[in-house]
């Protein structure tokens, strides 16, 4: 079980995942001088400003040209470099999907696409800026690897990792500060799923039901809260992080499926096309069991505070717990 000791204590720390990315990019830039970065007029926002200051000649401001930026990054990669190209997820990969598909993925060059401000937690900016389809559109592209870090620490570690791989990669980041869920000692384990929370037998005797919640991204915090709530009702929940949505750690998924009565997936994304789909697709062929999916249900987002939006779109721990109960019945 991997969980930071300070979570749910008064010492709980918070940091946005994009900040972890910025730290990871600095480290990757130090380690490998072939790491270069491109940004479409959002350098501070996507936390590339540190890299820009330190590696000025390896940073390229493209202006608001997400489509051309993809091509420039592809050209750089074909010359033997590792370009990280960042914008808001709504614009990249939102606007430049075909360019990513043809000139990056079909060319099979190691461009690292960083989609910041993903999810509805962008909040006040509203639906135009809330990318909740990005994992789906990236997951469908052959050769593309898809990562959804759960906190700033995982974002840093994933960034360092993808700088060493030869595949095109997509990393999904969020804007708001969210709790640090992983210890500082966390190391990347090749995209394997892992347990973040395991229900304890506090009340004596066995749990009536065993359920796994499988999630990705900062919403796992809500998932863990839901598991704690369900524990009081005698429902034993294991919370699992799947930080790499593609390729998915199906071996682990299958082992988990054998041990539980139902699985509930959790993500800040449309329920179609994301992690929930990936899990349901695999299990329906290999080991059919009840799968409930928590996510946005075929709707656009809107302006609001994160707490208001989580409530409206059914993403709070309360909604997750309810989905677990429904899935069991």
């Amino acid at each position, binding site marked *: 079980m991997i969980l930071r000791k300070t979570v749910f204590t008064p010492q709980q720390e918070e940091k946005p995942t994009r900040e972890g990315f910025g730290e990871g990019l600095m480290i990757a830039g130090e380690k490998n001088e072939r790491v*270069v970065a491109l940004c479409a007029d959002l350098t501070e926002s996507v936390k590339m400003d540190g890299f820009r200051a330190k590696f000025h*000649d*390896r940073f*390229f401001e*493209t*202006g608001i*040209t997400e*489509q*051309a*930026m*993809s*091509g*420039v*990054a*592809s*050209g*750089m*990669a*074909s*010359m*033997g*470099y590792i*370009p990280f190209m960042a914008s808001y997820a709504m614009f990249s990969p939102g606007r430049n999907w*075909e*360019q990513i598909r*043809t*000139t990056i993925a*079909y*060319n*099979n060059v190691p461009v690292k696409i960083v989609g910041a401000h993903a999810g509805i937690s962008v909040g006040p900016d509203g639906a135009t800026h809330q990318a909740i389809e990005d994992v789906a559109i990236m997951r469908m592209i052959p050769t593309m690897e898809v990562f959804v870090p759960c906190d700033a620490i995982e974002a840093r570690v994933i960034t360092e990792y993808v700088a060493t791989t030869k595949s095109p990669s997509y990393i999904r980041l969020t804007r708001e500060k969210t709790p640090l869920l992983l210890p500082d000692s966390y190391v990347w384990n090749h995209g394997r799923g892992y347990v973040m929370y395991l229900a304890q037998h506090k009340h004596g005797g066995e749990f009536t039901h065993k359920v796994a919640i499988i999630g990705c991204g900062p919403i796992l915090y809500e998932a863990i809260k839901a598991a704690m709530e369900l524990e009081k009702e005698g429902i034993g929940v294991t919370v699992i992080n799947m930080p790499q949505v593609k390729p998915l750690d199906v071996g682990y998924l299958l082992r988990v499926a054998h041990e539980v009565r139902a699985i509930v997936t959790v993500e800040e994304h449309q329920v179609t096309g994301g992690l929930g789909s990936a899990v349901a697709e695999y299990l329906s062929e290999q080991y059919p069991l009840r799968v409930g999916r928590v996510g946005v249900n075929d709707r656009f987002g809107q302006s609001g505070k994160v707490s208001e939006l989580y409530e409206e779109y059914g993403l709070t721990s309360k909604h997750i717990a309810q989905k677990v109960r429904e899935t069991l019945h």
Partner: protein
Amino acid sequence: MHSLTDIEVQALTLRAEDIRESIIKMLLEAGSGHTAGSLGMTDIFTALYFRVVRHNPRHPEWVERDRVILSNGHIAPVLYATMAHAGYFSVSELKTLRRFGTRLQGHPHRGTLPGIETSSGPLGCGLSQAIGMALMDRLEGHKPDRYFYCCMGDGEINEGQVWESFLLLNKYKLNKVISIIDRNTIQIDGYTEDVLPLESLKDKLESFNFHVIEIDGHDFKDIVRAIGTAKSSLDKPTVIIAHTIPGKGVTQFEGDYRWHGKSPNEQEAKEALKELRTFRGKVKFGEL
């Protein structure tokens, strides 16, 4: 680069006619593909691969090579035919164009066929890639001395991504990027000035602060001279507007936009080959 002698022009002309023959044959065999643009760009591709570009067909991955980026991937037949005649692979492989299992995909795929610098087909993507390559070349201090040739269609310039790329090209003043626009005035739905007017193209490009050269895209001396001038431009990127005749070399294809995306049938191919082999009746069939 010295200017071409008449004998050199003659050699390139013969080479281009061989390549045109291969294009007609491979399109006939494939039963689909883009005829007009391929024939229209044959002289430029011949000049590039047999005169201008530093490359090594035996070592397509040679790091010091110039890069030829074909942005309008639908004219792949001229790229494939030129590469085959240059020695990248056997001319006989050309007949596999568009067939299942072929290295000669309907639109080029980087990785399938050595020597293909990028996958293309969806329009407007090439120039930005040439920019990315040239930026890394600059980061390495222009060592070795490499050039980045981006061939694109005129209809392709409808794409917004091309204009994004023009902005970037001006920003970074990448003089090692030499863009060649095939100004054949046709696109699928008709003549470019009817579909979406581009004129005055030269003025537009000059307003981006590019070094713009207009040439006859079928005149080898003109082509080679323009590229020589482009290489001597040390402060500005060069864009060559190459006026070409779509379907060049075959009377029935020339200047007719309907041949943009069509391949010849057996009778049409036979007539086209006859015309090419006889240099339009100037020499007797069989003498070549």
